[in-house]
């Protein structure tokens, strides 16, 4: 039996902010005519908008929820509320056996596990015609080549005319160039070009950024000389999608993974979720996207560890990964690496950049460190050296509230300019706060 999850961990599983808020409101026993906890499965009935109450169940080993409500979010607010109730009102749970529909669901889950273990041969048969696939790939590469040649000319023009005149160019110049790269299916390069106008006030940063773009274009021209992992990094930086289906065909790392942090980014038309997992000295990044207004796929319990099989995408600095099958056996964090000083983190990051010059961010466990309010806020280690923190100080206020300004361990993302704190521990990481 796993320990009860904290409300914070439970709410981190919410597919969107609305579900989390609604789950809080439903987390009172008065709204649940029945609540039960049998053998690691929670189930209960919640009065919903229909005449018959919804039947909700949570398999704590995932945790994975099932509900008879019409919501297409997983887990839905009822599943989250059931977990919250279990954490706060455990003694209100009875031990009635689950109704048949839930038993069937649980049995189905176990069967699927068995089938998966026996091998997923069927999928391979659906593999498309390799010849057609190669043709499509060649067509795309041709497009990218044309797009990047255009970019190269554009960059050369910029430095020939002088960056001093760059800021007087009409905005449409940058937009057009970004749109061309988008059409050339080089979304990563397009995104970097679209970022240029923000740097026009800082010529040094602009020059470095243009250099990075030139490196992308040059890298593509000379891609024959790159080893496989380097080529993968280049393709990913250019915006080639990850071949997740292909990766899932291969063997992953089956282990107990610590789920250390989660970043949710609300972009204009997209919600991006980055979940950072760790196992011995390997950090893995699970990336999920959802169009605006749509729920994210089910996430992993933050601050817990899970049994999971992760396949790392090829890279000279492997961290992007896909989850193969389902994570189970949620439990406390285990075997964490020793936290790093700031210097050690920068050194590790330099190492990562040496392998993948296009690396946008990596995640590290720092400690013992303090956070210092200021403009900007900073993270400081025992040597007195500091690095800037990201602008969103709300999580830092929570950190200060609990740490009272004392040293803590912080897990977060470093992007070369600012550290984004995602999770922290006032005592030993994984221990009680």
């Amino acid at each position, binding site marked *: 039996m796993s320990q009860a999850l904290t409300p914070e961990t439970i709410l981190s599983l919410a597919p969107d902010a609305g579900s989390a808020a609604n789950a809080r409101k439903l987390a009172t026993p*008065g709204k649940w005519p029945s609540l039960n906890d049998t053998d690691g499965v929670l189930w209960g009935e919640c009065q919903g*908008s229909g005449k018959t109450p919804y039947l909700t169940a949570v398999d704590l080993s995932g945790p994975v929820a099932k509900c008879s409500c019409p919501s297409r979010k997983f887990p839905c607010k009822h599943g989250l509320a059931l977990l919250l109730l279990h954490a706060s009102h455990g003694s209100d749970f009875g031990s009635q056996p689950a109704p048949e529909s839930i038993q069937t669901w649980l049995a189905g889950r176990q069967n699927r596990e068995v089938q998966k273990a026996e091998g997923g041969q069927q999928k391979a048969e659906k593999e498309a015609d390799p010849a057609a696939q190669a043709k499509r790939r060649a067509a795309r590469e041709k497009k990218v080549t044309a797009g990047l040649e255009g970019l190269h000319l554009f960059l050369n023009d910029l430095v020939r005319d002088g960056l*001093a005149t760059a800021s007087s160019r009409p905005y449409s110049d940058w937009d057009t160039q970004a749109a061309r790269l988008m059409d050339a299916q080089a979304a990563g390069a397009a995104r970097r070009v679209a970022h240029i106008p923000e740097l026009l006030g800082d010529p040094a940063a602009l020059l470095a950024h243009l*250099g990075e773009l030139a490196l992308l274009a040059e890298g593509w021209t000379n891609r024959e000389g790159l080893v496989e992992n380097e080529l993968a990094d280049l393709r990913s930086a250019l915006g080639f999608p990850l071949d997740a289906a292909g990766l899932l065909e291969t063997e992953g790392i089956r282990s107990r993974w610590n789920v250390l942090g989660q970043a949710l980014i609300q972009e204009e038309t997209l919600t991006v979720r980055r979940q950072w997992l760790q196992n011995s000295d390997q950090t893995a990044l699970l990336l999920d996207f959802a169009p605006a207004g749509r729920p994210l796929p089910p996430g992993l319990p933050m601050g817990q560890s899970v049994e999971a099989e992760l396949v790392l995408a090829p890279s000279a600095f492997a961290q992007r990964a896909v989850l193969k099958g389902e994570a189970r056996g949620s439990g406390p964090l285990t075997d964490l690496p020793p936290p790093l000083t700031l210097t050690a983190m920068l050194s590790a990051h330099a190492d990562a950049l040496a392998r993948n010059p296009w690396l946008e961010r990596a995640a590290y466990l720092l400690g013992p460190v303090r956070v210092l309010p200021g403009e900007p806020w900073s993270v*400081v280690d025992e040597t007195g050296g500091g690095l800037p923190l990201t602008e969103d100080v709300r999580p830092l206020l929570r950190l200060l509230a609990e740490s009272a300004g004392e040293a803590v361990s912080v897990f977060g993302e470093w992007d070369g300019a600012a550290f984004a704190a995602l999770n922290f521990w006032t005592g030993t990481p994984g221990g009680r706060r």
Partner: protein
Amino acid sequence: MSDLKTLLATALVGMSRAALPPHVDTPLADALSRVTRDDAESTLLARAALVGLAARAGQLPLPSAPPPEPAPAELRPEAPARVTRHLISVLNTAMLPEWLSLCGAAGWRVPHADLPDLLDWGSHVNEELRATLRPVLGERGRWLAGFSSDWRWLLGLKSGDVTVDGPEWEGATKAGREALFRALRDADSAASRAFLTVHFKVEKAGVRKRLLDVLAQTWEAGDAELEPLLEETLSDRSEDVRAQVRRLLQGLPSSAYNARMADRAKAMLGQEKVGFLGRLRGQVNFTLALPEVPDADLKRDGLEPVQHPAERLRHLLNAVHPGALMTALELKPAGLVGLAAQFEATDELVRAIFSSAAQPIEPAFSELAELLLPRLKGSFTHWRADLLALVPAPRREAELQAALRGHDSQLTLTLLRGLPTPWPADLSTEVFRQLSRAIRKAESAFAAYDKNSDWDYAWINVLELAQTRASPAAPRPSSLPADAPEYARQTLDNLYAGLALRAQIHADFAAERSL
């Protein structure tokens, strides 16, 4: 010069006008010199890429500022887990203030992890709700509030923090000055009075009006010492300011203004002889006459010249403190109401009561309100609930019971609003019963738009009040029949689930406090 600066100097000018710069005696000089491409532009860009990457990879921590003062030790114990487990479901709901009050009454503070959410809530609510929050935030809460501009409200203002005689005041807009004065009232009311005495007259009319508004809203007994200033302000150039100051002086029973008004009434009144029967009933017939001596202060006190004495009397009744008037005329409340009734001035008397009534309510006002209730007519019937707020509690409760039984949703709502929380159990049950009756046919919240529907907005508001104010343990009427609309059943179920949660919260607090 650093490699980046050398490259930048060339890049800014443009390769069409400058040559590639050499790199000498820098850590990257050798590596950079080896980077060459077919054209100078490409070479510059490739070197820029190398320099940029080297800078990113070669970062070092920067020296940092000294850390903030450590958080002081807590003086209150943390609330036990059995009660804090409810925070997650009551946060940002109408039930939170009750939880906070219970926590405050128990002498506990909230867990540190909940401070940011609660401080955020405090930033969005009024001062009355903040008062439930302040005691339970603990020392850590006050320490933490110093780190976010959104949470400054918690730190409050010490008298030294508000400066109203410096450049901040000079530079402030009308609204800004109002806010500064309000802050000064909060921090130090004696200083605010001293400030008014010196500063009031030099402000513009718009600001003078605002300052008096603040004074009226935050009136306290000590403000009576401002009477000389207020008296002087009766001659203010602005009619708005004069009207406001007359109301302030009317509310001060012993003011010279009230004395003048009462004297005028006294000078107008005579009594007619009544017959034997009338004397037996204690009947008094008043006569009115306008005084012949001209009254120099008439205009200053806001009175217009009139043709008929009754008109003057109505003006006076409207503008004088009823208590001061009763004293001057040696009348009991019944006598005053009789006078007002004789000259059709009961509406004016009602208004005067609300311009003058202060907390706690004087018995004479309570009596006046009882006598005036049956005399309300026309548009003044909407004062009913307000007058009921002044009458003694048993009378008000009887009225509320009658309103509930008579399905008068609006009056029920107003009377319930005036009751202290929690309502008595039997009243709560009666409210539940009436809510069930009113909602039982409602298909949706839109029923409130339907003229023929029993379910209206006043009932919806009663339901919201009941959620947080009804006695959580009060017995509930049997639930709606199975064929009742879903909306009706669910709305009531939600109400009962909320009440069950409150009952649980009360029980948990009681259990932990008795340990």
